[in-house]
């Protein structure tokens, strides 16, 4: 009886998540476009729903809600479904879309998409070989095999994102890095832009006039067609047309310049807005947070280095360790079990919420960045393909964050995850995360440093 109640609760929450994912897709991501492909929307919502359910199960685990056996059952079911979608369905759809876009193979779409899918599965399998992630007692098609590979990809992605985010966050929030931009700078750039446009216009006027007079005089300048035409054009060419090619080259250079100026002006406007934002209350608050974040990020990088150098893996989670330290050094009496449960709940909840939010924001930004180039429906299809790719990664991201969350949870709560996910080498994942995080953070520091140095030099020139 209780199993039925629990199941109905789980299913209702899943439907809720599904609806939320659907709405998010419609309102946020595809706000300015017409979506004809409902497949993409459905897949996104389903992946999102199941991922959120997994997190929900973790929280239930900590809180002790619902029957333990029904929790276990739902864990298994959830995991199976997600893995099915991630590894089987989504790559198949990606292959199908790619193939249907290539005109030549249109007839035998199904066949070629199956072929693509098989290749993907092969590489996916090969992925697991160089990593020491499996103990030899598992069969070929067990859940552990799939999870381990999905975990590797997901952990890499997470570490890359966190590394970059850890460096980019303080850089964006702290106003120390903002260059000083005045209104006169912007006006000067705008004037240069308009002058360049005027020069382009006057040159094009000359070209148009020349072409018109040539046309009226009957020298229709045809593009040299065929072999003989090409030879003729080498020896004899009308003076007008020579002029034209010269002016055309100048125009091309000027157009490139105008594009550069446009982008620079946009940059200056954006910087000016950020300066104004930083003077407001909210801006000051974020600036303060930025300092905090930078300290936190430096600490994280430091810890990652130490973990790698000294070959150390955290055995206890931060919560219990924090409580132990407080109890030992400060001599305050804590009811350890009680507090550890609540604090770990809050901590895990925060991690989950921020990671979901961060992922959605990243998705939106990425989508806007690539969608600004074209908007025809065919291109929306291409975007849908890319989105599906992203959802694949997103699913992996969620699965691996479950793996990593395991580290922040006290011992008694880890049991269910360990039970369900089998005996994976969790330590390996933590080490791998640290390595990739470190690499990503260092390279983004380098990248941002270069970008920051290069920008002010451009404005010093005039």
């Amino acid at each position, binding site marked *: 009886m209780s199993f039925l109640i629990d199941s109905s609760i789980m299913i209702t929450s899943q439907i809720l998540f599904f609806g939320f994912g659907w709405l998010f897709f419609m309102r946020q991501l595809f706000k300015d476009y*017409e979506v004809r492909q409902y497949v993409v929307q459905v897949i996104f919502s389903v992946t999102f729903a199941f991922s959120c359910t997994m997190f929900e199960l973790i929280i239930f685990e900590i809180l002790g809600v619902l029957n333990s056996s029904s929790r276990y059952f739902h864990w298994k079911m959830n995991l199976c479904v997600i893995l099915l979608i991630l590894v089987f369905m989504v790559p198949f759809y990606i292959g199908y879309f790619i193939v249907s876009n290539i005109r030549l193979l249109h007839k035998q779409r199904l066949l070629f998409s199956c072929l693509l899918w098989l290749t993907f599965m092969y590489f996916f399998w090969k992925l697991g070989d160089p990593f020491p992630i499996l103990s030899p007692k598992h069969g070929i098609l067990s859940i552990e095999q799939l999870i381990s590979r999905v975990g590797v990809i997901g952990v890499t992605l997470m570490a890359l994102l966190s590394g970059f985010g850890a460096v980019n966050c303080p850089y964006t929030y702290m106003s120390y890095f903002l260059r000083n931009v005045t209104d006169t700078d912007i006006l000067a750039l705008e004037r240069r832009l308009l002058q360049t*446009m005027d020069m382009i*216009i006057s040159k094009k006027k000359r070209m*148009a006039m020349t072409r018109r007079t040539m046309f009226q005089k009957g020298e229709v300048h*045809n593009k040299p067609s065929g072999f003989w035409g090409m030879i003729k054009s080498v020896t004899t060419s009308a003076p007008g047309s020579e002029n034209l090619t010269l002016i055309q080259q100048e125009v091309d250079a000027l157009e490139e310049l105008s594009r550069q*100026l446009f*982008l620079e002006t946009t940059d200056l*406007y954006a910087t000016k807005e950020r300066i104004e934002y930083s003077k407001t209350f909210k801006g000051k608050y974020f600036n303060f947070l930025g300092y905090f974040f930078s300290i936190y990020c430096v600490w994280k990088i430091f810890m990652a280095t130490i973990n790698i150098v000294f070959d150390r893996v955290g055995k206890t989670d931060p919560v219990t360790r924090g409580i132990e330290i407080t109890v030992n050094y400060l001599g305050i009496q804590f009811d350890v079990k009680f507090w550890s449960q609540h604090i770990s709940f809050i901590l895990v909840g925060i991690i989950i919420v921020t990671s979901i939010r961060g992922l959605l924001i990243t998705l939106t930004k990425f989508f806007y960045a690539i969608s600004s*180039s*074209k908007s025809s429906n065919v291109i929306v299809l291409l975007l849908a393909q890319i989105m599906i790719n992203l959802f694949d990664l997103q699913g992996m991201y969620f699965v691996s964050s479950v793996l990593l969350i395991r580290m922040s949870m006290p011992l008694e709560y880890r049991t269910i995850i360990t039970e369900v996910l089998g005996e994976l080498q969790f330590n390996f994942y933590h080490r791998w995360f640290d390595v990739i995080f470190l690499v990503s953070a260092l390279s983004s520091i380098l990248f941002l440093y270069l970008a920051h140095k290069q920008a002010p030099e451009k404005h010093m020139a005039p």
Partner: protein
Amino acid sequence: MASLDRVKVLVLGDSGVGKSSLVHLLCQNQVLGNPSWTVGCSVDVRVHDYKEGTPEEKTYYIELWDVGGSVGSASSVKSTRAVFYNSVNGIILVHDLTNKKSSQNLYRWSLEALNRDLVPTGVLVTNGDYDREQFADNQIPLLVIGTKLDQIHETKRHEVLTRTAFLAEDFNAEEINLVIEKRYFLRDGNQIPGFPDRKRFGGGTLKSLHYD
């Protein structure tokens, strides 16, 4: 007016509707072979004989300013774009007949361009809703062009065209639906006979812009 020969026409619309192809067609009398994303603004010039054949014939240079981007851009991009909206003589609004959203966005495009001109202090009206009153005393002529008619299936063409007719009425604008199709030109080669059809099309619309 300083230079009477100069006529500035803005070409606005969402990304990918075919503004650059349209401008190229009007100015170079050729179909654009490899359209690519427009950064900032690209200008092209067309020589036009106003009132051709009559004693009042005069030659104008029509500058077609093809402004790239989307309505949902960041406000920094919008502020930069506003530089191009000064002293405009006419506006061509381009939308994609296969994409409903691009037609709806035309309202926002026209607001962005017109408000810049009407309010010299540069304050942009933040409310993006369409209000016919705002276009009532608009002196700048508008032309609405719908592209990619050939990509719509025969049976649906009627309903699409009625929808766009309403759109044009809302703007109090003239309307033209175009087929910018490469195959048409390749069949005729580079011959001029294939071309006068287009020229009459283009010439007809632009004549309506001159009523000073």
